[in-house]
């Protein structure tokens, strides 16, 4: 098991190098001069431009730029962005916010998705099941920006149940509205996945055998249907956590959440290679660790799966 975890963590190295190289190159290849863009309509003196280009290594060929980036990374010196803010400080500011948002959204979709999915599955074909199925289809069909604005208007402005925008004061309570919007879409998928999985397991031979043993219905459901049904759901949730951490550009934009999605969008627009790559590097780590956790959880849920 330990060997397996070590091997998985070692896989981070090639994945990390590959993704940063790719992202760095894509930012490098973006059209337009980032320095010229910084000054807008004004034309700065050539000496200032040269000094800035030199500071950000923009006068170097691509490979040298990438090499310098890696060197700085391994010496834990992420440098500063175009507004002279240390990138490390930016990361330390945005990631906790997005992490909070992601975890809140994940909890919402997991708890409600599994709960509704299990009840729909157990009552297959009944009124509750059909209602939930149609409702989840509606949720899937409505785009996030529509859902986001509607929720903002109804719950944030008209009913005043939650803050319509988050701004600088991001905490668990203030993030509830964007978290619900973010969680809703995947909630519908989790619900459907759980429902299908429960229906499949209900017809399994071992469930019939469990009933034949004289177990009560709640015990059969809890011990024999639920645990087995969770296996695919956990896989989906884990993969989803990585996606949520990547920042929800639309949702964070609507609710003005100072998180990863917002910052990444800004940095891409400005052509700030080092900032983009720094954010992506952290995301790669998050993805790899999230996937590893899913795999470990998977092995715990299903003893047939053993890693060496």
């Amino acid at each position, binding site marked *: 098991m330990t060997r397996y975890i070590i091997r998985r963590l070692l896989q981070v190295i090639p994945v990390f190098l590959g993704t940063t190289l790719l992202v760095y190159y894509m930012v490098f290849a973006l059209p337009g001069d980032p320095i010229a863009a910084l000054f807008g309509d004004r034309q700065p003196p050539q000496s200032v431009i040269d000094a800035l280009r030199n500071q950000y290594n923009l006068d170097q060929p691509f490979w040298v730029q990438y090499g310098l980036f890696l060197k700085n990374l391994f010496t834990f010196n992420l440098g500063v962005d175009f507004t002279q803010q240390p990138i490390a400080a930016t990361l330390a500011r945005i990631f906790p916010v997005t992490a909070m948002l992601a975890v809140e959204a994940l909890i919402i979709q997991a708890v409600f998705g599994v709960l509704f999915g299990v009840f729909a599955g157990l009552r297959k074909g009944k009124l509750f099941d059909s209602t939930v199925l149609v409702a989840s289809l509606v949720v899937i069909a409505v785009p996030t920006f529509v859902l986001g604005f509607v929720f903002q208007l109804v719950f944030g402005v008209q009913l005043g149940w939650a803050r319509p925008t988050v701004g600088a004061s991001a905490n668990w309570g203030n993030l509830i509205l964007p978290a619900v919007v973010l969680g809703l879409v995947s909630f519908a998928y989790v619900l459907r996945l759980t429902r299908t999985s429960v229906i499949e397991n209900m017809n*399994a*031979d*071992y*469930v*019939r*055998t*469990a*009933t*034949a*043993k*004289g*177990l*009560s*219905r709640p*015990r059969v459901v809890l*011990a*024999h249907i639920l*645990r*087995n049904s969770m296996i695919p759901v956990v896989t989906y949730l884990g993969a989803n956590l990585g996606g949520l951490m990547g920042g929800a550009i639309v949702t964070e934009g609507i609710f003005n959440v100072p998180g990863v999605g917002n910052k990444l969008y800004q940095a891409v627009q400005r052509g700030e290679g080092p900032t983009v790559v720094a954010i992506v590097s952290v995301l790669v780590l998050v993805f790899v660790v999230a996937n590893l956790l899913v795999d470990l959880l998977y092995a715990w*849920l*299903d*003893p*047939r799966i053993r890693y*060496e």
Partner: protein
Amino acid sequence: MTTATVKIEETAIQDRPILEIKDLAITFTTGAGEFKAVKNAHLSIMPGETVAIVGESGSGKSTTALAAIGLLPGNGRVTGGQILLDGEDIAHASERRMIELRGSHIGMVPQDPMSNLNPVWKIGYQVRETLKANGRPDGPDDVARVLAEAGLPDAHRRARQYPHEFSGGMRQRALIAIGLSCAPKLLIADEPTSALDVTVQRRILDHLEKMTTELGTSVLLITHDLGLAAERADKVVVMYQGNVVEAGPSLELLRNPQHPYTKRLVESAPSLASRRIQSAKEQGVEAADLLVPAAAGRARDEVLQVRNLRKVYKLRQGMGQSTDFAAVDDVSFSVKRGTTTAIVGESGSGKSTVAKMVLRLESPTEGQIIFDGVDTAGLKGKELFTFRRRVQPIFQDPYGSLDPMYNIYRTIEEPLRIHKIGDAASREKKVRELLDQVALPQGTMQRYPNELSGGQRQRVAIARALALDPEVIICDEAVSALDVLVQAQVLNLLTELQSELGLTYLFITHDLAVVRQIADHVCVMEKGKLVETGTTDDVFDAPQQDYTRALLNAIPGASLLLPPAVA
């Protein structure tokens, strides 16, 4: 004195059957309307008695048994009659009452040990929750005792293992342990051993019999195997299309069947006493021997030669180490054109690995497979393509080996298309011919596998195998999944096709009764090695090896002489 009192008590108890089913009718409601799965079932089981329900799939035997434990699927319900458990009608009992009865009064041993244990819980846990639910002591020692009684050695350790760490036989022992753990008065055993090897089957049935006798448990045994029913049950009840058509003491019923269906069942039951199905052996082979000059012809006659075949797998043991495991070890045999050779053995004996290597789906570690004078190991590209055309497989599971998305026409036509034989019109003609050959109506072409019965599907699989006019057909457990009557039909079909088309069969099976019916030569395999070969008659009449004798003895009903089969 004491014996006398016991006697009196016994007769008092035996006055009333433990289970009595009267005029039972069960209806399933499906999208296509109502379907009466059981129309009129009646039977009674006395305390301590074993009663077998025999019938083909779809006869309603399992449905009747499931109704007795209140486990009918959601769309099924009892529409008539009574199920009296110890005098109490449970046909419409509440779910709460059924939960009380299940486990403690009625136990169940299900059919497939692979799918009936929950893969995510330890065996001990699954035993313990049964004890707990029925208010029995459920400590680790109690769990181990229950498992040990079912014949699992080292029960404390076994209880801490997961189902996937158990073999099929051990899982079935665990299921028997669970079924009998609360000493129920009635045990429903639904095909308890049909998924197991014959020798394992025998040991498990012996043990089950011993346990139920000790506990005084009555057994309702569901089986499609007449020999097994006759050997294990006091009474046999024959079901056919939802009705009980005949019932009576086992031997009497089998020796003197009254109902036409029972008669057919008795006749087609493969047993040791049956003989090779006619035609090929008597006519084909001897004719071929006459035509070909003996000395020169022999070598050419052998379409398939397997020489010193070995297949070694590496078993991983963790920590980067591995050990060699010889699945097939120094196996040599040859198959004459137009004959049938059977390879028999238990699961794990390596017989299927041999089949895969002959089909070149696996490559041997050592040794040669000579097909028509050419070593198949050297075949590449075009030659291999031609070889594939000449050697075709038929697999065990007709449910799994047909693509559910392909209709029957496309299934049978596909090999012709891949091998670019003929144009669309001639291919369609060929498919029609093939359907005729396997006795399927032309209308089958547009249907899909899920609309066909198991026997029909296996006919489609045979038609598909025949499409390319192969010379050798490898049948890997080709009839094992079929009911006896259907099995007999398919075996007859294979025999007819052999004499018509001069086919050579290599038959991989664990079922010795089938071997007797179809094979000319037998190779017995045990743990990767060939332990005995010979003509079918020699091997069956005078087995040389203990292992072969054990296999022969394990055939259910082997000790019973059934007049129709002998005659």
